[in-house]
């Protein structure tokens, strides 16, 4: 039956080949991009060109001038600002600190993230819960991270000193951030704390793509756990590790929020990294030209890393693709041709060497114990500081500045939350100016976050479709890489032109201004996320819809958008969180409570430092980490999807 069937088929093929007009080319045509594809990406590319391209060009123009903040006169100096920076010892010192900071962060977060990923890759009871806890330090706003850790390290009454005191180790306490080099290390450690979860997520994705048979094969081939890690797992993760190191390095180049909160470049200039030096020059000394030049060095560094990544990435990946049954050996198996006697097995191999250090049950038990211990340490590392923040927000304000310090509160109270949430009614408490700003700032954060994420996802949705379907066409490939490049642009470089333009357009202190500024990083992000979603939708669905009589627009609205709805939700949630946590733009582009968002108000507590304000500040911080924590626990996969779409969070 099968033989005749094949014959019929062969006949059919020949008939077709004969009937085909000879002029028609046999090889597949090059992909033709329909006009609507350009239409779908146009709004996104246009907006990105305006809110990213424009400021980048303007910032470069600015860097060629010397500006006088008082006379407001601009003087063209060519590359004088760059030359001045290169000739400046402070610049090189800042570069040195930047490199140290980035190196520390890279090594620390990669090692820690690897440990987290290896633990989370195992199946065990409570894995989902542990993953949620691990994600929190990354999901919460860097401002809250800074607030938390600056209190932990605070000299006289800080949590770490308090903990040592409680344990009777008070003599080891010291002004943690007082010493320059120690401060740099501690800030870098804080960066590790907040970055390691992202590394862990990306490594986890790599681990889960590794076929289990590889691990088992290596096991049978005699490799122990350590040998397996280095010989099999680590090489498998190589592409992931490359991407991670680029992302981590760029993120630490752009680190700004935690520096602003924790050390402000001090003590002395000990934590003045390049980004801080640029910020200081441009926004404290108001020397826009010089500041722009410094920040352009930062941008160039980021782009350089990004280009290194692109170059390496575009080389072919050497991972084995699952063998396809259809395309296979053209020549018959060589074996079949072999008739001669096989070569006799050489006797060169000794007896099988059995490694038996410990009896199997004992080594299993030891491994299990070590695993539980490691999982527990990771839990403590991730959750303990956050729990301490919650505890501090429930502690009476006066407890927080006790000497000698202690972590044990005298009583638990909701007074701090009362102060920041209902400032008008709290007659019996002295509600400060800053605390009174919290409710409006939460409202602002919500409005800005909701608007910008809906707008960006609506535009990015259509662009993502075209990128997924026509990503191979030259125009789309180029603009896709351009979009990724904008993700690598330090926000500090963009914020300066934004600031200058907004002053003339009177967009300073408006929520609209923030929405426009945020779309500069959220629009590329949402387009990128939606693209990876559409890539998971089979092309045949488009074709079926078109054959069934849809126009391309009804194909999108009736067929594709319902299919990618989970992706849309993920993108909206992720963009909302990114906007909610954003600090730099909000800090520079707002100066009155009218449009300030919650991170800015929290940072305001620190600049108007009054001791009794710590309680409300922690309460505000807890409120600010509420949305990220809720997402981490209840919509974790949205967070993970956002992170894996190449999200770079500064």
């Amino acid at each position: 039956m099968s033989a005749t069937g094949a014959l019929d088929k062969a006949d059919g093929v020949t008939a077709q080949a004969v009937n085909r007009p000879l002029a028609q080319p046999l090889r597949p045509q090059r992909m033709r991009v329909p006009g609507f594809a350009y239409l779908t990406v146009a709004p996104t590319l246009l907006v990105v060109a305006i809110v990213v391209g424009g400021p980048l060009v303007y910032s470069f123009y600015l860097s060629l001038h010397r500006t006088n903040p008082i006379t407001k006169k601009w003087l063209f100096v060519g590359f004088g600002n760059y030359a001045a920076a290169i000739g400046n010892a402070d610049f090189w010192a800042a570069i040195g600190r930047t490199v140290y900071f980035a190196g520390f962060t890279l090594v620390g977060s990669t090692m820690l993230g690897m440990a987290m990923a290896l633990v989370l890759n195992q199946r065990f009871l409570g894995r989902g819960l542990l993953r949620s806890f691990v994600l929190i330090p990354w999901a919460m706003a860097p401002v809250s991270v800074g607030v938390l850790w600056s209190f932990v390290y605070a000299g006289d009454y800080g949590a770490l000193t308090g903990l040592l005191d409680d344990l009777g180790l008070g003599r080891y306490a010291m002004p943690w951030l007082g010493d320059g080099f120690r401060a740099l290390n501690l800030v870098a450690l804080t960066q590790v704390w907040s970055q390691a979860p992202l590394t862990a997520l990306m490594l986890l994705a790599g681990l889960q793509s590794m076929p289990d048979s590889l691990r088992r094969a290596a096991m049978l081939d005699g490799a122990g756990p350590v040998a397996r890690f280095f010989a099999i797992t680590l090489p498998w993760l190589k592409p992931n590790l490359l991407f991670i190191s680029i992302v981590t390095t760029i993120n630490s180049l752009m680190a700004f929020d935690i520096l602003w909160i924790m050390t402000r470049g001090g003590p002395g200039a000990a934590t003045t990294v390049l980004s801080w030096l640029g910020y200081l020059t441009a926004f404290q000394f108001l020397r826009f030209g010089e500041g722009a030049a410094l920040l352009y060095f930062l941008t160039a560094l980021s782009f350089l890393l990004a280009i290194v990544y692109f170059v390496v990435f575009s080389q072919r990946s050497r991972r084995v693709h699952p063998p396809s049954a259809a395309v296979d050996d053209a020549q018959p198996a060589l074996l079949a041709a072999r008739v001669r006697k096989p070569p006799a097995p050489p006797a060169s191999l000794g007896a099988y060497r059995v490694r038996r250090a410990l009896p199997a049950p004992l080594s299993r038990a030891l491994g299990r114990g070590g695993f539980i211990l490691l999982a527990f340490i990771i839990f403590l590392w991730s959750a303990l500081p956050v729990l301490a923040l919650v505890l501090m927000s429930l502690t009476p304000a006066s407890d927080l500045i006790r000497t000698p310090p202690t972590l044990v509160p005298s009583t638990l109270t909701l007074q701090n939350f009362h102060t920041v949430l209902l400032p008008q009614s709290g007659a019996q408490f002295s509600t400060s100016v800053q605390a009174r700003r919290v409710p409006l700032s939460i409202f602002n954060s919500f409005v800005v976050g909701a608007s910008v994420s809906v707008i960006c996802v609506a535009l990015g949705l259509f662009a993502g479709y075209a990128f997924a379907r026509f990503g191979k066409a030259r125009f789309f490939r180029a603009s896709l890489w351009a979009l990724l490049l904008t993700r690598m642009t330090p926000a500090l470089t963009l914020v300066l032109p934004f600031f200058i333009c907004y002053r003339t357009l009177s967009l300073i202190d408006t929520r609209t201004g923030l929405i426009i500024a945020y779309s500069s990083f959220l629009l590329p992000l949402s387009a990128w996320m939606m693209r990876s979603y559409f890539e998971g939708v089979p092309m045949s669905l488009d074709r079926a819809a078109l054959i069934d009589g849809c126009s391309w627009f009804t194909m999108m609205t009736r067929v594709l958008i319902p299919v990618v709805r989970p992706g849309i939700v993920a993108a909206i949630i992720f963009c909302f969180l990114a906007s909610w946590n954003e600090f730099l733009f909000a800090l520079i582009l707002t100066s009155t409570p009218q449009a300030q968002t919650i991170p800015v108000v929290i940072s305001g507590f620190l600049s108007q430092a009054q001791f009794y304000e710590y309680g409300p500040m922690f309460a505000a911080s807890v409120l600010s980490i509420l949305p990220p924590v809720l997402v981490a626990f209840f919509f974790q996969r949205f967070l993970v999807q956002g992170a894996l779409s190449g999200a770079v969070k500064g």
Partner: protein
Amino acid sequence: MSAITIESVSKSYGTTPVLHALDLEIPDGAFVSFVGPSGCGKSTLLFCIAGLEEISDGRILFDGHDMTSVAARNRNIALVFQDYALYPHMSVRENLAFPLRHQKAEEQAIATQVAWAADLLGLNPFLDRSPAELSGGQRQRVAVGRAIVRHPAALLMDEPLSNLDASLRVKTRTEIKRLQRELKITVVFVTHDQEEAMVMSDRIAVMNNGVLQQFDEPMKIYRTPLNVFVASFIGSPQMNLLPGEMAPGGHGPRRLVGVRPHDLALTANGGSDAFTVTGELALIEPAGPLHYLDVDVGGQLVKATCADPNGLFPGAAVTLSAPVQAVHLFDRESGLRVNS
């Protein structure tokens, strides 16, 4: 090479049992296949032998030595995985050398062994390629090479042919069988393809739902299946199974009568002691050397074979008969074979 003894091995994942008190004796140098539908526990049993899965109860012995609590890496077992599990970042040469390196073999010995395995399997042109640059069949050979390169106590194979296309699969199974003969290695081969198992094995273990149904030589299983499951699983097309009351011979409703299509042929008038049924021809399926006939016998389709369907047409009334020694009788309740 070793003999493998499986002594009342049970395994469960949590409360879900997957293997029920299995007993098997795999002789030294034999080619044994585990065959059964997917989910029957055949791969699990293979992984238990390899030590990749722990067993809940029973013992596994190699040449009389208890291996139950020995770690996988110390059992000297090689396994060819369904997806081959070639190390993607290593060249073919490094893949072949990998198990030897972890045995701390001398560099010279490693070179000799790799050269031997490459020669045996025709891998010499590919030694410096990465697995991604090989075709499916070449990858399969590298996987076999990596498995035999260190002379393992036994070679386990988990559906190693399922990723090859049909014609290559037939060639490769011959080659694996030949390799096994020439090297005299113990092979345990897992497949869901009963034909593959029949062609290759010295002995077949038919499994269903974690229970061993029958363990015997291929043709013995084919000729005397011990129960209805084995009868219908082994042999293609499937054995016809008719209710006892439908079949002649007065077997009654408590019996199932089984006849293989190849034993059932057209007849003009059935012999007195032969198994005979009459029905209406529904379909003729040409299959090259012979034709399959689908015959409607009282509402049930019965498959038969004939060499020459000339003059036959769908709708014709036909009589089929089989010699009485080709008739298998099963108990309807228990499914067990009744005649000997």
